[in-house]
């Protein structure tokens, strides 16, 4: 029985995925669970698995094509089965897809052309729709201008005719490229200026040239979401300095009894403590949805993990009820998958609160940007030995600074401060976290 393989949805804001590579070629035999293709999403490269066995009957899209989620990408059929592709695609209610498959069969060049023009017209590299009047789109196409490079003066930033005309005029008046070459800037008089101290610089010094590197999907997604967050969410910040003397002691004791692969990090304790605290502060374990505040029943902690060229947030589900060693184990496994670029959708989906930890980098304090649609994020800095005053005496103590960034639409300073107070208590009495 022939089956359609579709572009999977791998993130809540994912609208399309780039099919990077076909692992299985047409005609290859396929076992359930085999990797068919690799998809690059906003977040990472993931694999599309076969849900059935047979052979890969046909690729419906070529590699290096962006495909909207849910659209057919391939057909897997029984060995020797003859598939009526149109009927199969048609019967699935994907009229559009079938016609595009047809168009591909009949006129591949034409399809390519329509795809390029589409990308020119209606979407930027970030995948967001660019507003432009039909006339402006047509003019941009005619003059081979990238709409993404232009800013619109119309309502809501719509690019209109006069913006295109301005861009064309600017292009005309642009100086010839030669004039801006470094050779042209070099001043021949420089060697004659003997008064300057010699050792500081050499006249023939050539700094490395600027490099322009296109943003990958991940950087684009981070950029888009962080801009959105900082522009739309009224952040406020509450910082606490937590006494982690007991925690550091416990941390050493516990890890002293465990093999390397099972060691519990400070961050694992912070995750557990935060999750327990959130249980008592449902208003902070929340999201804005339209005009409502959704107080989440479950506590799913997102943990920011650095990857090459960006970061991702992995999700520890129900962290408030999981023992620390389970949390620790999950974080290790997910982080490994993330670094290999082989995450599963559930690894990065559904967090209700996030933690960003820079403690391993000797950081005094920092504030994080809220990960929308969440209401708050906790920035965890290094546990440091500092002078402290206890019982009117100067002593050496362990302190760790935590900064909560919270959405003022959802919560207020007093509640955030109380949250920090409770969180501090949990961390200052870390034995409770183990019970």
């Amino acid at each position: 029985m022939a089956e359609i393989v579709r572009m999977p949805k791998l993130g809540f804001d994912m609208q399309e995925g780039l099919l990077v590579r076909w692992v299985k070629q047409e005609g290859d035999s396929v076992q359930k669970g085999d990797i068919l293709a690799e998809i690059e999403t906003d977040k990472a490269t993931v694999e599309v698995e076969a849900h059935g066995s047979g052979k890969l009957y046909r690729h419906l899209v070529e590699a290096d094509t962006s495909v909207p989620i849910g659209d057919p990408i391939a057909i897997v059929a029984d060995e020797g089965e003859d598939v009526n592709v149109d009927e199969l695609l048609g019967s699935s209610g994907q009229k559009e897809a079938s016609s595009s498959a047809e168009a591909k069969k009949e006129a591949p060049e034409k399809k390519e052309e329509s795809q390029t023009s589409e990308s020119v017209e209606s979407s930027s590299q970030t995948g967001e729709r660019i507003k432009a009047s039909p006339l402006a789109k047509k003019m941009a196409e005619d003059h081979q201008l990238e709409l993404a490079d232009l800013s619109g003066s119309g309502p809501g930033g719509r690019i209109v005719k006069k913006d295109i005309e301005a861009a064309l005029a600017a292009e005309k008046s642009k100086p010839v490229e030669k004039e801006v070459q470094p050779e042209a800037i070099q001043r021949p008089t420089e060697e004659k200026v003997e008064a300057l101290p010699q050792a500081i610089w050499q006249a023939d010094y050539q700094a490395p040239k600027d490099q322009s590197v296109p943003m990958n999907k991940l950087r684009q997604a981070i950029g888009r979401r962080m801009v959105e967050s900082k522009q739309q969410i009224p952040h406020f910040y509450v910082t606490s300095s937590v006494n982690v003397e007991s925690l550091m002691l416990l941390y050493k004791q516990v890890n002293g009894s465990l093999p390397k692969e099972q060691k519990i990090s400070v961050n694992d304790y912070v995750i557990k403590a935060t999750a327990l605290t959130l249980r008592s502060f449902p208003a902070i374990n929340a999201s804005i949805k339209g005009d409502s505040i959704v107080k989440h029943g479950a506590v799913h902690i997102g943990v920011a993990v650095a990857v090459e060229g960006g970061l991702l947030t992995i999700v520890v589900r129900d962290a408030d009820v999981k023992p620390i060693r389970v949390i620790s184990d999950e974080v290790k496994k997910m982080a490994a998958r993330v670094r290999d670029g082989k995450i599963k959708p559930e690894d990065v989906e559904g967090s209700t609160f996030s933690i960003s930890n820079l403690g391993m980098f000797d950081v005094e304090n920092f504030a994080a940007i809220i990960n929308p649609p969440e209401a708050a994020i906790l920035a965890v800095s290094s546990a440091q030995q500092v002078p402290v005053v206890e019982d009117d005496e100067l002593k050496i103590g362990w302190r760790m600074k935590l900064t909560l960034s919270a959405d003022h639409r959802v919560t207020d300073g007093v509640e955030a401060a109380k949250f920090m107070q409770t969180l501090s208590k949990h961390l200052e009495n870390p034995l409770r976290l183990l019970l």
Partner: protein
Amino acid sequence: MAKITMRQAISQALWEEMERDPSVFILGEEVGVWGGTYAVTKGFYDHFGEERVRDTPIAEAAIVGAAIGASLTGTRPVAELMTINFAFSAMDHIVNEAAKFHYMFNGQMVLPLVIRTVGGGGRQLGATHSQTPDAIFAHFPGLKVVSPGTPADAKGLLKAAIRSNDPIMFIEHATLYQTRGEVPEGDYIVPIGKSTVQRAGEHVTIVTYSKMLELSLKAAEKLSKEGIEAEIVDLRTLRPLDMEPVIESFKKTNRAVVVEEGWKSYGVGAEIVSRIYEEAFDFVDAPIKRVAQLEVPLPYNRRLEQKALPQVEDIISAVKEVYNG
């Protein structure tokens, strides 16, 4: 050229056509002895006699039915309906007979029929006597719908209508009869189904007809003082609709406002805007706006009536919005 009123222009066209062709005759309520509710046929009864200027009972279905019968037997009736609101009483005759006989009977007969009628609001005649249902009639294939905005067009189009072999709704506007304009004397014909540019401009295209042409011209003069030059296309005929001058103008300005007196929903503006999107999508630089009557039965109270009808200021603000949009 003589500057005469719209009333005189229409009267002139009728008179000249009746003189020219003995098969042309008039029928309607009060068209004879009284000289017409809007005094268009004053003097006709005495000059042409009761055979050719027939007063009828107050029964629109009978007027249109009789006119259809007469047209089928070789005459050229000009039936007058006192207001277009009364045409609803004759709807079956207009829609199911006049609009369809030629087609349904394999072209065996023609219907050289003109239904002259008066539409529009602004005279405090109340909700049932002030409507602008032009789009309803323009909806039916088989009918032609003409609605002039200037005295010259009124004369030229009415003469063309009387000479046409098709059934035509000739919709005059109740508040335009006093409007003066230069009208060529004698045999002056304006072809049916031709839109025309009434004012040249480069920034925004205003598409309109009938009474709203007058308002649009006033709006354009005021806009001109602020540096916005509107080009005004007068449709003149709603069916068959001539989009060519509209599209041509739009390709130049890339922005448009459609001004109609009737209600916006399912109206003339809806049709024009769709056509522009269909025929000139790549030339659209801003969303096209419609100016139309508020979606209420037209109030009797003078202030409320004026409030509900499109005003010059409404056109100005719509044009500015589109110009800046």
